């Protein structure tokens, strides 16, 4: 277990760095382990934490198609082979070490994987966890009758072999580095329970899951709450609280009210709405933190439209966006301006990209120089192409609509005509979006799958659906250098080498501006004072990724 211990020390050190930096603002605990200051005081799990959620968790088999809000339950009841820490570093969990080419866990060509597993993990029913469970899990995901969640990466796995109860190996159809981070979100399910089920989609297990995780299934009152109880035999450190409750409160104003009144200890997904951020910060006995998410908002362009083919136009539009006013004026100062699709909490984030500067005069000069001159109607044009375009987003989103109107007015000052044409969500994000039928779009989304930096699906020229590709490169961005780097990055396992690759990609994308990055999304997380060990992790989708480390300071 030496490797696991090393990993644990590593995460403790990074937690200390984090604390010193004040990024989390919550002192006194390491990331995945026992509270540093109260090591002996917490022999037995005590107390209860109520997490308030605006959507109801309903999918408890972690391998089935599910949404973000279900993640908190999965992270608490189950374990994956690995977990990802707040710094974006992959740590072992049910595996005793993270495989790489240096330790021989992954072969030089990246095709053969060999994972060593813990020998001290048990299912909540007392049965030991073994490599057979891992094999069963990976096979169930690819079972054509099973309503699996994501199959990317898993579809490449071949010849799964159980070498011993604590060792498993497989072969990959092609070298695919992102798979390691996909495995941090692939929770292992018990073979001895699920193999007996004729139809895994309607198994009783799906309503009363059995995992290896720090919390056992308690009870669920549909439409109201579900309760997990501490697993005293957990192999890792923790849990320190006896009961973990996820309470469903559909109305977000009421969710915040219950946080204020103390009925809810922690506001999870979808968190405190931005308009309450200012008030929430001043509440007594509450800790309110901005937590970065992986998604970012951008002014997204269809590069095949003649208005946008020229870089000068995109640069001018970017210079004409007053990001500060937008963030402060419309979004209550909650989001963080960004220059890239890579979230800042990622290991691969490039912090040295050129900083955007709002400058209307410069924007005008760029257009003048490129030959876009105002026509008789005041709108700029070049070679018969008028600088006029439509902008679309989900209708009924008041903030985005205000953003559009704000940009429309600024662009008009430059002789650029922007028409607002919004559509209902389902129409907007259907073919209109996927087949690149738009001029420009205001969109917020994550480019990363899990926390892996691979963005082939978004930026590779192979991923343009309108040109017969598969993926979501709906801007129709095509840069051979980016393509080559993306291909290389997906085959490279060493994180330092990968970092160089993805930082270069960010540089190129920042230069080419296939979309104009506006801001990275932050959420307003609220906790009651006295709960320790709550460390936000923007590399996961849930606030409850480490409930095992939470405890009430006495």
């Amino acid at each position: 277990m030496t490797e696991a211990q090393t990993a644990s020390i590593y995460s403790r050190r990074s937690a200390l760095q984090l604390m010193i930096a004040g990024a989390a603002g919550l002192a006194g605990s390491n990331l995945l382990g026992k509270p540093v200051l109260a090591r002996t005081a917490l022999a037995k799990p005590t107390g209860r934490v109520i997490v308030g959620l605006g959507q109801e968790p309903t999918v408890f088999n972690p391998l089935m198609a599910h949404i973000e809000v279900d993640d908190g339950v999965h992270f608490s009841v189950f374990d994956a082979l690995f977990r990802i820490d707040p710094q974006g570093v992959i740590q072992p969990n049910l595996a005793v070490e993270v495989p790489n080419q240096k330790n021989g866990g992954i072969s030089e060509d990246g095709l053969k994987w060999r994972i060593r597993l813990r020998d001290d993990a048990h299912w909540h029913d007392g049965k030991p966890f073994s490599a057979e469970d891992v094999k069963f899990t990976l096979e169930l995901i690819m079972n054509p009758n099973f309503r699996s969640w994501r199959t990317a990466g898993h579809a490449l796995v071949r010849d799964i072999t159980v070498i011993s109860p604590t060792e498993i190996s497989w072969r990959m159809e092609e070298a695919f580095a992102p798979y390691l981070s996909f495995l941090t979100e692939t929770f292992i399910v018990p073979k001895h329970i699920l193999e007996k089920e004729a139809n895994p989609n309607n198994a009783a297990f799906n309503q009363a899951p059995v995992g290896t995780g720090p919390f056992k299934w308690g009870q669920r009152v549909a439409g109201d709450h579900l309760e997990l109880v501490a697993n005293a035999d957990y192999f890792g450190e923790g849990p320190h609280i006896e009961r973990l409750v996820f309470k469903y409160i559909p109305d977000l104003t009421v969710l915040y009210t219950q946080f204020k009144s103390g009925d809810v200890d922690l506001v999870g997904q979808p968190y405190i709405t931005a308009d309450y951020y200012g008030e929430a910060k001043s509440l007594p006995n509450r800790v309110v933190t901005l937590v970065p998410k992986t998604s970012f908002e951008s002014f997204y362009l269809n590069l095949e439209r003649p208005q946008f083919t020229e870089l000068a136009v995109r640069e001018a539009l970017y210079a004409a966006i007053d990001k500060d006013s937008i963030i402060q004026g419309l979004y209550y100062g909650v989001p963080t301006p960004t220059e890239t699709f890579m979230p800042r909490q990622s290991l691969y984030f490039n912090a040295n990209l050129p900083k955007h500067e709002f400058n209307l005069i410069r924007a005008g000069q760029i257009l003048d120089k490129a030959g876009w001159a105002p026509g008789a109607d005041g709108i700029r044009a070049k070679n018969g192409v008028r600088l006029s375009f439509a902008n679309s987003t989900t209708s009924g989103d008041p903030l985005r609509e205000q953003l559009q109107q704000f940009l429309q007015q600024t662009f008009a000052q430059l002789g650029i005509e922007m028409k607002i044409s919004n559509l209902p969500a389902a129409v907007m994000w259907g073919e209109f979006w996927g087949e690149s039928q738009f001029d420009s779009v205001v969109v917020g989304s994550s480019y990363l799958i899990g926390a892996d930096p691979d963005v082939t699906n978004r930026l590779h020229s192979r991923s343009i659906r309108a040109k017969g590709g598969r993926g979501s490169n709906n801007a129709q961005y095509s840069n051979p250098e980016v393509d080559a780097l993306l291909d290389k990055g997906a085959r490279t396992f060493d994180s330092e080498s990968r970092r160089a690759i993805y930082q270069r990609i960010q540089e190129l994308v920042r230069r080419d501006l296939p979309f104009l990055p506006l801001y990275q999304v932050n959420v307003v997380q609220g906790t009651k004072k006295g709960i320790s060990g709550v460390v936000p992790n923007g590399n996961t989708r849930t606030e409850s990724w480490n409930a095992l480390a939470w405890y009430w300071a006495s």
Partner: protein
Amino acid sequence: MPRFLLNRFSQSIVLLVIVSIIGFTVLNLMPGGPLAQFGLDPGMTQKDIARLSEQLGLNRPLWNQYLDWAWRLIQGDWGHSYRDGSSVLTVIGRHLLATLLLMGTSTALAIAIGSWIGIRGATHRYSLFDYCATVGAMVALSVPTFWFGLIGIYIFTLKLGWVPAGNMYAIGDGSVLDYLHHLILPSLVLSLVHVAIWSRYMRTATLDALTQDFVKTARAKGVSERRILLKHVVGNALLPMITLAGVQLPSLLTGALVTETVFTWPGMGRLFLDSLGYSDYPVVMGLLIFSAILVVLGNLIADIVVAVVDPRIRLS
């Protein structure tokens, strides 16, 4: 009577078929669908979505899906929720009691208070009480319930701290007293609107009864006003109320969409909203059929009760 019931039964079947066809079609025409929630999940490929669509049978033509659903329903299989995999009847069962508790309390309150206000308003027509009741009813009917709900929470929870801000019970408690404590605010807010409706109907019905010949006769005979009211007026005024109660009966079990959401009440109304939001077709259809059956039953019961109570009416 048996012929009447048979007639009603066959009418109801036709009604259920029409309701289900319309419901199924409208539901499926709604853009989005059950897989839309995965649309912006960066890790789910087109292939993943297509696979799920096939597994759920969503890629079949609409008529095929409908007939399949209807055939299973006839055999007693209401289907399984797309969200949590439980059978639809189980899902409905989980939410039924919560709704019955909330709606039962608020309806009982509404009938009692509403009837009293209506009768008093009619007997004291154009008095200050009557004006206040009329204006109050108009306000209660025109202001949205969520506003009353939020104001109620603001005043009675945040400012005064008298009642909890929603939920059916405190997690870890769940005693009878705790349920009652949680019931106060939502049932009062919900009964506001119902009181308004009941008082208006009751006022009109009472006024109507007051002008009847038998009331004049009773007065001429020197019967006391109190006795006239209790013995002759209220009984007759309550007759149209039975029909109203029949119409309202289904809502006892189908719940209140808005109030249940504001007060985090785990009832049928919220189940419907949530299921609609996730396009959980089997549950939405199940709820639709369930409430259609209740509407049919509610009206049937009202008709029978009216016939029993009012000797002038014969069912045939």
